[in-house]
Every structure is written in structure tokens, then in C-alpha cells.
């Protein structure tokens, strides 16, 4: 009922939300900005920017450390944001919400603190071919350190995981599974429930790289039943430099700390140090306070619209984007899985993506070009890189029409 109401409101207003974003009100090379690079970093609504500035002007102090008023205000705001995150992803407890500097650190934390003490030579870690480098390299480093094996689930021509191969590769050597919830290069939404069900049978934990999941759909970590869920603020309308590791309490409890420092200890002495309880055990040092508070403000903003409304809006827009792109002769869509989030990679004729990027930028259109930190995906599709348009809640059909027009111009230049 309350959900439905929020949805209702969301539906009415989502097209107008782009005015909430100061960055989208500017001209680039004489054209109003069309921002189609939200999968790299989304823009921030004014409410997030202003919440951060207000904190910095009025309430800034170190957290957890002082009895004075500013310190108390800062701590309340910081811990309040943790409650918002807990609620946003429906973690069972606030102890399960660890603030990190981003998805990358979240994944490294799990690799080093959970896996490294556990892995024996010959054990293996299962990832997939469509991962972001942040969900590849930490595991490569770990496997080097432990002489474990990295197993890579292949993908098909549409950019989907080869699930039968995954099942075959999933033997008793596998001690950890780490896959993207949503691929940043291809948009593929992976069948994570199926993967988690398989892993449950073998009692192997699953980490989901949720960097591209959280911005596009309602996430419920308990319903997903994943063990770890990693995401970044800057893909969900908050600043860079802040992210979250959700972890199942029983696992986090058993893990040694990742970094040592202030705040993560109960008592320090040279004869022995006692670590603090969750979530502080994993938050060594002064955290990114304004980033965390900004993340909380972004969650407030997203919830005021409703994640279902956002998902619906983006789904319709993605369909329009794919349709319109396919009308262009010489286009090749890369990433054509039936289940996709609002990301579309493509090639146009034999124009190098980088040249496309420049020509589009000249029309005020920001897309991302290159390997999208997913070189193995590029190798799979035998391309040096792609052009990628990715959508946020603030995009509309007009943005896509502008993109398509500019692609026609690029064809002309290179004809």
C-alpha cells in the first residue's frame, strides 16, 4: 500500500526529475548536455550536493570520537546513513553494513579477509567472463598469493553466462563465487538466484558485485540470500569515494579485520589488541564522512521516487534506445541478453569508439568509449572497445534522439 503510493507519485514526476540535477542544466560545446554515462558515474541531485555542503559548513567533526556537539552531530549523521543503507538493501542488521571507499575496496576486503586465510593451494574461486576488472584482479592477486585457481565461467554471443558450464565448473574445489549482479559493459542481469541456489547446495559463499545493480532495481539482500553484496555510491547518485560491503553477519563475525587503525579496535596494547564489534571492525581510520552522508541523501532521493518507478522508466527507455539504434545501418549492438539493465554497448561501421566519443561530445552528448574496465568482454567480442550509452533516472527519449542524430553525423564524417 505505501509502496504503491510512492510508486504512484514516482510515475507522475519522473520525467521532470532531470531538473533536480545541476550538472544536467549546462551547455557543452554549445549544446545542452545529454549525459549517457551514468554507468561510469551518475550525476548527483542538488539535494545530495547541498546535504554535503551543509554538513561541511555546520556539522563537520571526526566521528565516534568526541563528546562535543559537532562530533556528536557528525556521528549521528554518519550512523543515520548506515540505517538508511540497511533499510535500502534490507540487510537484517546494521552490523552487516560496512562503509568502504567503493565496490573495489569491498571486493578486495572479501578476497583478503574472508578468502585469503581460508584458501589452500588447489582450491578455486569462480568468477565469470563478463566481470569488471574490480571483480577480476582482486581474485587474480588472491590466487597468486594462495596458489589457488581462478575459474572463469564463459559467456555466449548475447553476453549471457553459460549456466551449464557454470554448473560443471562448480565442483568441490570451489570455495568462493563472485559474479556481477549486472554487467557494466553489456547490461546483462545475471541469473544470480540460480547461482546462489547452486552455491547453497555446496555451502559456498557468493559475492555479488552490485555496482550496476543497486542503481537500477530494488535490492533485497535477504531475499537474494547472497553472502556479500558490494556497491558504490557514485553509480547511485551519490559521490565517489564511498561504497558499501553488505556481508552476512556470521561470516563477517568470523573474519579477521582487513585494515588496522583507529575505530576498528576495542583495546590496543602491545601485548594484544582486541578488535571492535561489527561493523566497526572493518572500518579502520577516519571514514569518508561527507561521502557517507551524501550516500544517505541519495537513498532518500531514490526512495522519494521509488526504485520500481525508476526501473520501469529505465526499462521503457532502454527498449526505445535499442530500437532506435537498430534502425541505424552499420550498427552492431553488443550485449543483447533478454534480461538487461539500462546499458547498451555498440559499434558503428568501422568507426573506432574513441572517434565516436569525440564526435558525440562535440554535440554535447557524453557517452563512454573504451573497454569499460572489462577487457575480457572486449576480447570475447573481438573488439578493441565499444561505445556505451548508459541511462539514469534523468534520461528521456529526447536524449536518445539526440544520440541517434549524432551517430548519423559521425557516419557522414567517416563515410
Amino acid at each position: 500500500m505505501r509502496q504503491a503510493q510512492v510508486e504512484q507519485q514516482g510515475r507522475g514526476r519522473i520525467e521532470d526529475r532531470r531538473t533536480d540535477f545541476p550538472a544536467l542544466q549546462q551547455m557543452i560545446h554549445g549544446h545542452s548536455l545529454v549525459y549517457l554515462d551514468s554507468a561510469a558515474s551518475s550525476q548527483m541531485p542538488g539535494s545530495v550536493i547541498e546535504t554535503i555542503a551543509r554538513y561541511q559548513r555546520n556539522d563537520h567533526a571526526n566521528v565516534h570520537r568526541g563528546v562535543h556537539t559537532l562530533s556528536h552531530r557528525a556521528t549521528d549523521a554518519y550512523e543515520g546513513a548506515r540505517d538508511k543503507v540497511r533499510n535500502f538493501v534490507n540487510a537484517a542488521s546494521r552490523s552487516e553494513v560496512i562503509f568502504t571507499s567503493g565496490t573495489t575496496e569491498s571486493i578486495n576486503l572479501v578476497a583478503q579477509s574472508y578468502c585469503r586465510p581460508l584458501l589452500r593451494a588447489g582450491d578455486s574461486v569462480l568468477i565469470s567472463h563478463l566481470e569488471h576488472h574490480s571483480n577480476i584482479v582482486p581474485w587474480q592477486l588472491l590466487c597468486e598469493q594462495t596458489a589457488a585457481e581462478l575459474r572463469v565461467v564463459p559467456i555466449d554471443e548475447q553476453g549471457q553466462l553459460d549456466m551449464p558450464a557454470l554448473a560443471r565448473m562448480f565442483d568441490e574445489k570451489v570455495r568462493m563465487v563472485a559474479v556481477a549482479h549486472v554487467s557494466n559493459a553489456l547490461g546483462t542481469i545475471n541469473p544470480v538466484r540460480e547461482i546462489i541456489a547452486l552455491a547453497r547446495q555446496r555451502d559456498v559463499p557468493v559475492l555479488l558485485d552490485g555496482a550496476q545493480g543497486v542503481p537500477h532495481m530494488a535490492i533485497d539482500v535477504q531475499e537474494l540470500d547472497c553472502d556479500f553484496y558490494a556497491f558504490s555510491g557514485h553509480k547511485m547518485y551519490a559521490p565517489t569515494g564511498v561504497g558499501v560491503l553488505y556481508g552476512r553477519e556470521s561470516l563477517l563475525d568470523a573474519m579477521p579485520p582487513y585494515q588496522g587503525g583507529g575505530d576498528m579496535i576495542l583495546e590496543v596494547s602491545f601485548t594484544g589488541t582486541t578488535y571492535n564489534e561489527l561493523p566497526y571492525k572493518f572500518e579502520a581510520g577516519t571514514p569518508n564522512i561527507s561521502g557517507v552522508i551524501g550516500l544517505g541523501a541519495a537513498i532518500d532521493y531514490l526512495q522519494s521516487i521509488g526504485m520500481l518507478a525508476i526501473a520501469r522508466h529505465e526499462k521503457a527507455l532502454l527498449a526505445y534506445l535499442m530500437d532506435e539504434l537498430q534502425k541505424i545501418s552499420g550498427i552492431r549492438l553488443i550485449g543483447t541478453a533478454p534480461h538487461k539493465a539500462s546499458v547498451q554497448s555498440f559499434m558503428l561501421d568501422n568507426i573506432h569508439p574513441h572517434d565516436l566519443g569525440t564526435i558525440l561530445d562535440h554535440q554535447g552528448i557524453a557517452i563512454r568509449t573504451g573497454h569499460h574496465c572489462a577487457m575480457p568482454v572486449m576480447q570475447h567480442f573481438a573488439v578493441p572497445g565499444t561505445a556505451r550509452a548508459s541511462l539514469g533516472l534523468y534520461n528521456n527519449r529526447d536524449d536518445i534522439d539526440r544520440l541517434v542524430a549524432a551517430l548519423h553525423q559521425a557516419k557522414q564524417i567517416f563515410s
Partner: protein
Amino acid sequence: MSAVHTHEADDLRELYRELILDHARSPRHFGKLDAATHTARGINPLCGDRLQLFLQLDQAERIAAASFEGSGCAISVASASLLTDSVIGMSATEALELFTAFTAQLCDQQDVAVVIPRLGKLQALSGVREFPARVKCATLAWHALESAISQRSATATTE
């Protein structure tokens, strides 16, 4: 402006009432309890307060004796002292109820406070409500009490 000052100074006097200062200076039941059946430590990692609470429960689960050791600010020491004073003679269940009532009062959950009988001289700590940064000090011993009785964990923290 002077009204503000007066009001603020009042808050401070409310916090550091004579009864509190008295218990802080001369804590009751201070020291180790050799006959203790239950014990737990309380640590506030952020300010360094640390104490250990000792309880002696008899066969009827009644608190025959209670004491504490450790160091802390006036609020946490007075609170521990008042705690030991209050719980001696109570059943474990009553003590847990008191824990609930006391912590609810400080966190301003009035509805709970209404249900529970008067807190007696523990009311002296109600000035802490105006000092949210100090609620953890006032509840430290109480969390240790709860840990000791339920024997959940050897160390309670108030972070």
C-alpha cells in the same frame, strides 16, 4: 541570551546533580566480588571507560550481591554505583526489567517508561537525556548487567 545561558547551566546542574557527584566520588559496592556467579565487562571503546560488573545470584536467581570495578567518567561510575545499589535483592528477571526501563528512559521512549514502575533514585540520571553524547556512559554498566545475567558475551560495548 542570558535566558539561554541560564537554561544551559541548568542542564549541566541537572546532569551533575549532587547525588550523581556523590556516587561518582564514593561509589558504592566498589571492588571485586569473590563469590560472584556472573560477571561481565563493559567497554566504551571511544572514551576509554571500562568496568567489570560482578553479580552473585542465589539458587532462586535472586541477586544476593553485586559490585563493580573499573574506571570511567562521573556519569558511568555513578550509574554503576546506583545500579549495584538498586539491583541487590531483585530477581534476575526484575533486574532485566529494570535494565529495559532504565535504558528506555534515557533514550526517551516514554511509552516503555510508563509501563514500568518508578525508577527510584535512578531518576537522578535522567538529566543525561539532554546530553545524548553521554547516554552511552550512563548505560555502560547496564549493558554489562544484561550481558552478565544472560551470559551472552563477556564484554558489552556501547558503541
